[in-house]
């Protein structure tokens, strides 16, 4: 049914690309930032986050960098050029979708 997961599912790539585009960030950090920026409305679970990162990496949209951080290695993700182009596309698509849906459910 019209569950949170359903609508958000179609936007997970957008949300992840967006947060990674803001600054190099670890996977869990991206999920945390999405949660914060959405005012705790959107929670990206481990089970969706990991496959999404693997997919975006396989598509050449994000790139992991291993960075030395004290006594552990951090895996920071950055956007590739293709990732930045994809982010712009996904943003335009979301705006178009949400405007169209809003126009139907909130007729003037």
């Amino acid at each position, binding site marked *: *049914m*019209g*569950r*949170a997961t*359903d*609508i*958000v*599912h*179609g*936007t997970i790539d*957008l*949300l992840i690309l*967006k*947060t990674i*585009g*803001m*600054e*190099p960030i670890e996977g869990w950090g991206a999920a945390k930032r*999405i949660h914060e*920026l*959405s*005012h705790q*409305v*959107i929670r990206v679970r481990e089970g969706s986050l990991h496959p999404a990162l693997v997919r975006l990496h396989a598509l050449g949209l994000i*790139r992991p*960098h*291993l*960075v*030395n951080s004290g*006594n552990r*290695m951090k895996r*920071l993700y*950055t*956007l*590739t050029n293709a990732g*930045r182009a994809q*982010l*712009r596309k996904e*943003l*335009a*698509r*979301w*705006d*178009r*979708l*949400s*405007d*169209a*849906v*809003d*126009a*139907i*459910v*909130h*007729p003037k």
Partner: protein
Amino acid sequence: MRGKAIELVQGTLNMLIFQILAEKPLHGWAIRQRIHELSKNALQVRVGSLYPALIRLRSRGLISAHRVRTETGRMGKRYTLTRAGRAQLSQEIAHWDRLSAAVDRVAHCAKRHANEQLTSQPAPRPTSVRAPQSPSDPRLK
């Protein structure tokens, strides 16, 4: 900029079906046409998504179907929103509003100038891609 029509995810499609039927009872094909029309063709509803959705919503008692003869003389099902469907519609709209606002907050967050900054500068170089060297590393001897 006009892109390709966007296919709706199931939850959003259900909500739009309710909304369209709240105006008046319609045949399946007319629901689809109405969504295309109201969205100025930005949204696309595939026949293969619409009919399974109608069957599901009907089995849950959110819409009802009546066989009627269309203007062209064919028999077809006309769908009506039930009382339960009407209640579901307001819930779904509240839900959509909350979620789309949340996605907007992330998608349009300008903090740290997300895109401009990274397009005008090369991606930051990692400071190190090697594991920390231990004292036993032969290169240190």
